[in-house]
């Protein structure tokens, strides 16, 4: 038997790869379809009609389409249910197929404990691009949803800070990754150049965002101070007077102009 297999294999070197009879009969993806994704079955059992349909892409990538009205509730259940535990949100993005077709919001989920992938898609009609934010569920969705808002114009209801993240803060030409957006933008190059140089980007950020120290407190003060504050907060006995003052608190609003002149920031200068 082994000899025959070896003989066939050696002979096959001459003729090149051949389709096996079994593969020729089975349609692609049939095996994966037959073994239905356990999470999709559980979603159907729990949410019923909110789970619209289920397909398999590229062999083993399971895609489930759900209703926009229940998407956040459904995604929260996928994260928190003991049997699902999709704790890693790999991506939130959008697809615009053009031609007036609805826009798709895509959630790419991965369950680290169960080692399981699931892609959840929500279709939104172009005249109502509103969906519940999943930022309260996965913190990482914060910037992903800002990106989707910036480039596609989807409004994520309940997002704490929904503003542009890639295009300039005062960008007035719309949402560039939409299919109806002209490749070179809507304004003339001269106008785009003028607006680009006129943008006051210092105004688009809070003093805290412009300050490294404020965002990375460990750079600005001694570790012992940090430990004391954390302990006090944890024990519920936070008394601001009893703690050493944070050195950079006083000049929060002068950072934009006075720069390193503020003595308290010296520790954080990189």
């Amino acid at each position, binding site marked *: 038997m082994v000899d025959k297999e070896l003989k066939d294999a050696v002979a096959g070197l001459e003729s090149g790869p051949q389709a096996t009879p079994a593969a020729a009969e089975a349609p692609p993806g049939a095996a994966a379809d037959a073994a239905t994704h356990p999470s999709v079955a559980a979603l159907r059992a729990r949410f019923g009609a909110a789970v619209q349909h289920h397909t398999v892409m590229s062999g083993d990538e399971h895609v489930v389409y759900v209703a926009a009205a229940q998407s956040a509730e459904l995604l929260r259940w996928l994260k928190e249910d003991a049997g699902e535990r999709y704790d890693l949100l790999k991506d939130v993005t959008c697809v615009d197929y*053009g031609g007036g077709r609805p826009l798709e919001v895509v959630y790419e989920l991965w369950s680290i404990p169960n080692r399981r992938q699931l892609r959840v898609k929500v279709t939104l009609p172009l005249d109502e691009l509103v969906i519940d934010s999943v930022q309260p569920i996965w913190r990482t969705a914060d910037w992903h949803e800002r990106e989707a808002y910036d480039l596609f114009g989807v409004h994520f209801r309940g997002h704490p800070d929904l503003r542009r993240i*890639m*295009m*300039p803060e005062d960008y007035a*030409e719309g949402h*560039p990754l939409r*299919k*109806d*957006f*002209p*490749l*070179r*933008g809507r304004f*003339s*190059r*001269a*106008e*785009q*150049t*003028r*607006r*680009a*140089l006129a*943008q006051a*980007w210092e105004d688009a950020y809070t003093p805290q965002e412009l300050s490294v120290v404020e965002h990375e407190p460990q750079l600005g003060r001694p570790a012992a101070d940090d430990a004391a504050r954390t302990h006090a907060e944890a024990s519920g006995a936070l008394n601001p007077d009893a703690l050493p003052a944070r050195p950079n608190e006083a000049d929060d609003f002068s950072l934009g102009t006075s720069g390193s002149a503020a003595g308290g920031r010296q520790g954080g200068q990189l």
Partner: protein
Amino acid sequence: MGLGERPGLPVMPAGEGEASFLTTRLDEVVNWARRSSLWPMPFGTACCAIEMMATFATKYDMARFGMERMSFSPRQADLLICAGRVAYKMAPVLRKIWDQMPQPKWSISMGACASSGGVFDAYSMVQGIDTIIPVDVYVPGCPPRPEGLIYGIMMIHEKIRGEALKNPALRAEDPARVGLPNLPAEVVAEITTPFGNSTNQNKLSGLVSRGAVARPTDRHP
């Protein structure tokens, strides 16, 4: 190259027991000093910056030309090398860095994207940094090899060699132009006229792009 090797610079040989001296023009000395110790301000945004790093590293070694050190502060730099594409969001940063550099200063636009936008004829990309800042030398290539950048720097050297301190227009800078586009709006519109084959996008969007269907010869009748 030493001073004495330049034609037109008379060097008086020292006689027996006499002090040696030479005479030259002030321009020659100043230009020699300036071109022999350029401090580059690297503005590397893309793959051109990789070639720029290669140029400054051991094999090509820009220290041979007195460019011992990259100046990562615009205030101690006199040659801005813009290596890579510049997005409109980055344009005010480039302009601010240029405005912060003290005179005398020169700039090199390195690579196709910095010089013309390159393949990025899109909504987000500056179509040539000469719309933002004045450019002395354009280095073509995608990206240019280190030899290309060195050739561009040698051209800067030649340009400095020909400068005259008495030329009032040379170092003139208008404080009212700080932070503004380098070119008037109509010139920006002309030099960024679309070309190439990316017209399908505009057809889909209903825009009519006359520049895209015109022949190159039609652009300058």
